[in-house]
């Protein structure tokens, strides 16, 4: 069953200079399209990963899914309820408690003046729920000691803090957890601990994850489906094994090629060319065409639609024509 359904989601930010500057300098308004016509579904009890480089719109999508940002157009439906347009207060209330979020920086996302117990039970306490013994139980579930409930966040290391964030996210017994780069701030050995714990909790609690990351290798472990974003557009969507062995979009292939590999000593590869273009003025047609080794005239003129391809979907006029450079 589909838990999250994202339909033609678009978000435009107004990045114009202040009104007076525009008047004096005769500047037009400027708009940045952070997310452009993105659609995907997340079935219940699966992990959907959004991957992309900086400026690809992955965090913006995450914020729109949890309702921290309003879409400019398009819809996000969670369990069939669109939080923006729904009129039934009870339904909104029910869906809101089904969603939780874990952020990248475990130092910024915990209130330094609160004890761990208060931090963890807040999602339930705020709704007047019963919280007896809840913090202790959740702390043990995330691999910390129940005696830690009286401590403050500064008494924990980065990895332990991220565990506290996970415990807080679990408190309201959500169905969906949106994780925005949950392990990017952590060291590799701690990252492995947190990722393994998140997989275990998913199975125990029947959770659904929207997992946002810039790191394809991390996502490969967690995801049932990976969506690759480029300049606010979904360019490819596929199960991890398909994506890694036979990427269908040249950008996906470039990302996989560029990722440093452990067995790659002495590897001499041509690094990818160019950088992500200015999102305020993206290239016409396919946004990737200035960097694409396969670009043809059609790519500069016509934006490719996201079409079914193999077990996934891809937005490329020349899908199926590429081979990965050093594919293992």
């Amino acid at each position, binding site marked *: 069953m589909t838990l999250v359904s994202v339909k033609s989601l678009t978000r435009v930010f107004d990045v114009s200079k202040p009104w007076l500057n525009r008047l004096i300098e005769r500047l037009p308004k400027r708009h940045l399209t952070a997310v452009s016509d993105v659609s995907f579904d997340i079935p219940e009890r699966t992990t959907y990963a959004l991957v992309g*480089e900086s400026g690809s719109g992955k965090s913006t999508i995450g914020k729109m899914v949890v309702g921290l940002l309003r879409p400019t157009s398009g819809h996000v439906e969670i369990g069939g309820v669109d939080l923006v347009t729904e009129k039934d207060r009870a339904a909104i209330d029910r869906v809101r408690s089904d969603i939780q979020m874990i952020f990248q920086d475990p130092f910024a996302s915990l209130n330094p003046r609160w004890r761990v117990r208060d931090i963890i039970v807040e999602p339930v306490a705020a709704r007047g729920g019963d919280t007896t013994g809840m913090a202790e139980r959740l702390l043990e579930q995330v691999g910390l000691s129940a005696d830690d409930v009286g401590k403050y966040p500064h008494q924990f290391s980065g*990895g332990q803090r991220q565990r506290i964030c996970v415990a807080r996210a679990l408190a309201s017994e959500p169905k969906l957890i949106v994780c925005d780069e949950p392990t990017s701030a952590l060291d*590799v*050995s701690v990252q492995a601990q947190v990722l393994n714990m998140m997989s275990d909790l998913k199975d125990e609690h029947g959770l659904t994850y929207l997992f946002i990351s810039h790191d394809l290798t991390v996502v490969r472990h967690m995801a049932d489906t990976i969506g690759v974003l480029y300049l606010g557009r979904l360019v490819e969507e596929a199960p991890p094994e398909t994506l890694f062995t036979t990427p269908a979009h040249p950008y996906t292939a470039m990302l996989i090629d560029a990722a*440093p590999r452990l067995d790659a000593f002495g590897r001499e590869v041509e690094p*990818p060319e160019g950088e992500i273009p200015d999102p305020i003025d993206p290239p016409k047609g396919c946004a990737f065409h200035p960097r694409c080794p396969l670009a043809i005239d059609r790519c500069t003129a016509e934006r490719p639609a996201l079409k079914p391809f193999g077990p996934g979907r891809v937005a490329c006029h020349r899908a199926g024509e590429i081979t990965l450079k050093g594919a293992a």
Partner: protein
Amino acid sequence: MTVPVPVLSLRDLTVDIPTRHGTLRPVDQVSWDIARGEILGVVGESGAGKSMTGNAVIGLLDPPAHISGGQVLLEGERIDDLPLAKMRRIRGKRIGMVFQDPLTSLNPLLTVGDQLTETILRHLDVDREEAAQRAIRGLDEVGIPSARNRMGAYPHEFSGGMRQRVVIALALCAEPTLLIADEPTTALDVSVQAQIIALLKRLCRERGMAAMLITHDMGVIAETADRVAVMYAGRLAEIGPVAQIVGQPRHPYTDGLMASTPAASAGQARLRQIPGAMPRLNALPDGCAFSPRCPRAQDRCRHDPRPRVGEADARAACWFPIEPEEDAA
């Protein structure tokens, strides 16, 4: 024939930070050599002392941190005890440095061209005209398109990857023999990271420059370094050629570190993990600092003075290193 002098030699380098609650030792008796044209990768998790080692070499330790023992030799000449004025002539001239965040390493109020020519004029005996020419050549070399026109641009007009190229040009413009790069690609996207790595490799090869590449990313190390030094809790855990460190680690910490990178266990449902976390510097265990987390630890590891590289094993600071045949099993 004479034995070539290594570009950089660390001899039991030790850094202390006195605090009210006792002295912390973020770098503890670290020794290694870097030869001409060689890239030594220094890996470790946060707090392992890798940046502190780099800063100690270039003389940029923030007081009260100071070198309390050992020596730093640059081309056979001791530099850790030099007075400030002499050190300033080495820094930038003979040792170039690249930091993690390219935006904070550049002066936002000066054009890129000004910053480059200033550095060249300070360290090399050339006139303004020649310095400008060299600056343009420097920008060209690091792959900045239309370098001549970009000389008048300010740092904010460059993208992150281009800024890091400018910083590299700045570090190299006085033609140093040693480059210290501290997490040079951590703030960059993966496609740009690949470009910067390729650039560093090419420059070291072309100029015969030695480099010390500090990073927490095992993949970057595997791609770039000739030799790798693994640090843990301020101490050198293992050092050796990159293929051996990545392929046949001997120290259990190196083994765990390699195995817990997501790239290493591609296709497996679970990542291998090392239990626990690195000890704090004020609460280091007796004996080997890794012993509380080590699956191979025995009584000796917890009580005996800690092993050092070369003592029990030629490569790893471990009493019970992993033998190659075990690895195969």
